[in-house]
């Protein structure tokens, strides 16, 4: 048991008050000359048994009632065991903290001015106080490595900021918990209390993807038969005004750059929002028309007077969470986009080659590839058409998974030539003098979006006579009969675009180029802006593997594992930003998590409305009940006894 208001424990001294009053009363006694002393002596002698016991019991009741009141005011919490009265509970060898240090933990908590992270640390301090003799171990989500603490105060030490301070990273709680349990197993820890502190953001759990890990956690807890107790503490963020900003892409056109930004707000409103644009350290204000819940904003930023390569930081005014208010870009990277072609159809080869070579300053067309070529993985984008062998299909899949982009076209002959990447529908041919028309597409964003001056792609001129529609991925354009013209599918870190027709004369008029070429150019541009070379996730694998990174936007001691910013690597600028999934504010439903984590040794609590306690662990009501019982006992003891009881 520990206390949320330990200062109130000073009031324990008040428990002596009834005793003091009793003694004072004895000292303040009156003197009375008395005649019938004989009866007094006899009465005292006779009543000294039961009456004296009654007197002391009354005094004890008063003392305990005051004591209960003091303990009640100190707000005791019971953090261990299933029950407060579980006396058989053993002191754990280890008290472990699994700490979610994702960017979202830097929101202000709902009940204090502290961030969720700070509140979580306070909660852990309270939790650990229950077992002062246990060893303290922390495993946080950035490094997922064990940190042993000498004492609890260490978590507040400035030099431990690297492990307990705020970050711009994401989190994978299931992985970190697994690491923690593995450590406990390897260290052969008998008894352990594990506190998992998080805001339970969905992106920190990713239940479907992490199901095997969660099942493993469940299995480990069950195997320990209660020796390891896990407590999940959810800390609620404030509902105060908060805007968050994330960058989608950066398009550069001459002396202008067009960052595509998404701004989210948690309040229903329409307002002008001040935005600071920092170009290579020079800040200039801008204004954005924001409409809730989210707005996509693409400002034109002039870099005419700036160096050919540089960085841009876009930031929103300070609000209840400062960690989601900025995004970093780099521009003018000289790295050429490496494009390859793996196609069987000659017209397709031709039009794709030509399209790829239109912007030689940005795109390096490496030409046709042999399916067996090991260099396939060294590309950024591949145009693929035709049937591949299993070996080639495996390579293509790996290429996409590590972040590559594939633009896929159907095969003329084979029904389903690229099963690993796309599942094609059977070939359809339009009737004579008729064709398939594309009538619906996303004009507001993506590769089919309208041009900067608002003009739509000329789909009305596109005629398709033969098609194999892709059935997997997000449809971006539709034929008049509702079938899919093109889909976008994410595999691993990469993207697969699947066209439903070939740029060949007997298939469609795509070879005319008025639709295909702009789309190809946009895919190339998207590839360039999304290239992992220019922008990485903070705390991602790149931030851990790239060496000699120096911060351009912050302290030289900062590193991209925890802090977003622009870093210089061997003379090349790289932007590290908050992971995109941190932009998603959805919270994991406890019931979903409980479906996987079914162990009875996992408890679920929520931070209390004030302070940083564990809500269900508070046992003030127990002491309130005790106080009432003692007061009733005191009252009952004060009732005069019947004669029969006296004589006994």
């Amino acid at each position: 048991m520990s206390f949320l208001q330990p200062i109130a424990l000073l009031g324990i001294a008040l428990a002596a008050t009834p005793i003091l009053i009793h003694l004072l009363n004895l000292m303040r006694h009156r003197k009375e000359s008395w005649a019938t002393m004989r009866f007094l002596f006899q009465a005292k002698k006779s009543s000294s048994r039961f009456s004296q016991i009654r007197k002391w019991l009354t005094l004890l009741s008063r003392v305990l009632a005051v004591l209960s009141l003091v303990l009640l005011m100190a707000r005791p919490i019971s953090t261990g065991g299933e029950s407060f009265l579980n006396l058989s509970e053993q002191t754990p060898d280890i008290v472990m903290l699994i700490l979610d240090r994702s960017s979202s933990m830097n929101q202000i908590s709902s009940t204090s001015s502290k961030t969720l992270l700070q509140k979580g640390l306070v909660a852990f301090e309270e939790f650990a106080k229950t077992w002062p003799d246990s060893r303290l171990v922390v495993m946080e989500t950035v490094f997922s490595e064990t940190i042993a603490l000498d004492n609890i105060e260490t978590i507040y030490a400035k030099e431990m900021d690297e492990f307990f301070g705020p970050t711009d990273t994401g989190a994978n709680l299931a992985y970190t918990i697994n690491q923690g349990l593995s450590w406990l197993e390897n260290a052969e820890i008998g008894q352990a209390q594990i506190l998992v502190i998080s805001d339970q953001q969905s992106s920190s759990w990713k239940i479907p993807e992490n199901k095997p890990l969660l099942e493993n956690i469940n299995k480990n807890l069950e195997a320990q038969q209660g020796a390891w107790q896990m407590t999940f503490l959810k800390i609620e963020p404030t509902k105060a005004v908060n805007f968050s900003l994330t960058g989608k892409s950066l398009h550069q056109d001459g002396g202008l750059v067009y960052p595509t930004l998404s701004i989210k707000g948690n309040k229903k409103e329409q307002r002008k929002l001040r935005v600071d644009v920092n170009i290579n350290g020079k800040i200039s204000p801008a204004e954005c028309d924001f409409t809730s819940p989210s707005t996509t904003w693409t400002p034109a930023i002039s870099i005419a007077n700036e160096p050919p390569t540089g960085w841009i930081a876009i930031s929103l005014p300070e609000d209840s969470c400062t960690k989601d208010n900025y995004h970093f870009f780099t521009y003018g990277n000289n790295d050429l986009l490496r494009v390859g072609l793996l196609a069987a159809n000659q017209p397709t080869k031709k039009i794709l080659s030509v399209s790829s070579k239109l912007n030689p300053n940005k795109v390096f067309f490496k030409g046709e590839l042999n399916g067996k070529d090991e260099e396939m993985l060294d590309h950024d984008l591949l145009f693929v058409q035709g049937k591949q062998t299993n070996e080639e299909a495996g390579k293509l899949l790996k290429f996409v998974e590590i972040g590559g982009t594939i633009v896929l076209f159907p095969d003329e002959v084979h029904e389903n030539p690229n099963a690993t990447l796309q599942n094609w529908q059977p070939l359809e041919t339009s009737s004579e003098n008729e064709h398939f028309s594309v009538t619906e597409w996303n004009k507001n964003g993506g590769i089919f979006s309208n041009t900067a001056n608002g003009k739509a792609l000329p789909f009305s001129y596109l005629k398709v006579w033969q098609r194999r529609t892709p059935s997997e991925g997000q449809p971006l354009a539709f034929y008049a009969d509702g079938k899919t013209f093109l889909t976008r599918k994410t595999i691993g870190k990469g993207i697969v675009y699947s066209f439903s027709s070939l740029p060949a004369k007997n298939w469609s008029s795509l070879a005319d180029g008025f639709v295909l070429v702009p789309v190809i150019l946009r895919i190339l541009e998207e590839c360039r802006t999304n290239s992992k070379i220019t922008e990485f996730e903070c705390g991602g694998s790149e931030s851990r593997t790239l060496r000699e990174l120096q911060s351009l936007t912050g302290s030289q001691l900062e590193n991209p594992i925890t802090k977003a910013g622009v870093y210089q690597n061997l003379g090349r600028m790289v932007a590290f930003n908050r992971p995109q999934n941190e932009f998603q504010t959805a919270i994991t439903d406890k019931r979903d998590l409980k479906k996987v984590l079914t162990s009875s040794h996992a408890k679920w609590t929520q931070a209390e409305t004030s302070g940083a306690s564990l809500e269900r662990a508070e046992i003030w009501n127990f002491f309130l009940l005790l106080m009432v019982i003692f007061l009733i006992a005191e009252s009952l003891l004060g009732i005069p006894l019947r004669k029969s009881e006296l004589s006994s």
Partner: protein
Amino acid sequence: MPLQESKSFDYVDKQAVARFGGEAMLGNFPMEGNVSGHHKSNHKGSSVEFSEYREYTPGEDPRRMDWRVLARTDRYFLKEFEAETNLRAYPILDCSGSMSFGSPMNKIEFSKRLIATLTYLYLRQGDAVGLTLIKSSGTTDLPSRRNPSQLQDIIQTLGATKAEGKDLLINQLHRSADSIKSRGLVIIFSDFLEEPDALANAIHHMRDRKHEVVLFHLMDRKEIDFLFDRPTRFIDLEGGASILTEPSVIRNEYLSQMEKHISEIQKICTETQTSYHRALTDQSVANVLKDFSSLRTRT
């Protein structure tokens, strides 16, 4: 506090005198007086109350012979009548320290008023009254006399008396039982904090000597109610021993002991045909004497 000499006669309660002065207060047992009075005597005498016929024995006074019976029957018979004599009252006052307790007046002062009032009433009806004061320093005895000046002597003696010292009542009762030669009315004023057995022995002794015994049990309201609201140190008036206690805790037990003691004394009184009267110091003298008087008047 004893009254000043000039106010000594205030010991006689005028209200009680006015209330009980009209009727003679009689003894319940035959008395041995030396003059004619209102009380039955143990001897046959020449009063108007016929007692019995008895055969004449030579040597007896021939004046008491019933000549009419002799004329009718030629037999010598004596016609006897009840004798009525005066009464010797012996108030005995316990002057131990415990008698100094009480309010608005203490037990001994209240007792003085009872004694003075009874003395006045008995002297007025021609009875003799004496006084015995039992003090730790020694006993003061005033022999019984019928002289009206006896009232002044008694009041003066009482006025100079204070309650102090140990309780010697029992020993003195035994002594008095022996020292009072003829049958008399022994009226004992005390708080009777003695052991009941010892008190019973003393009363039996008195009764064996044919004395009529009356007990006036002096008590104070505080002793009966025992109401105290905070811890109190009780100091013994007779010895200085003290006890610190929470009265509320022992009250019930105290009252129980007190009640038991009183009932034992009452039981002794019943057994020995002794009158028992409880006298509370906050009562009026007339009220206390009401029961005493009502049991002793002819009406």
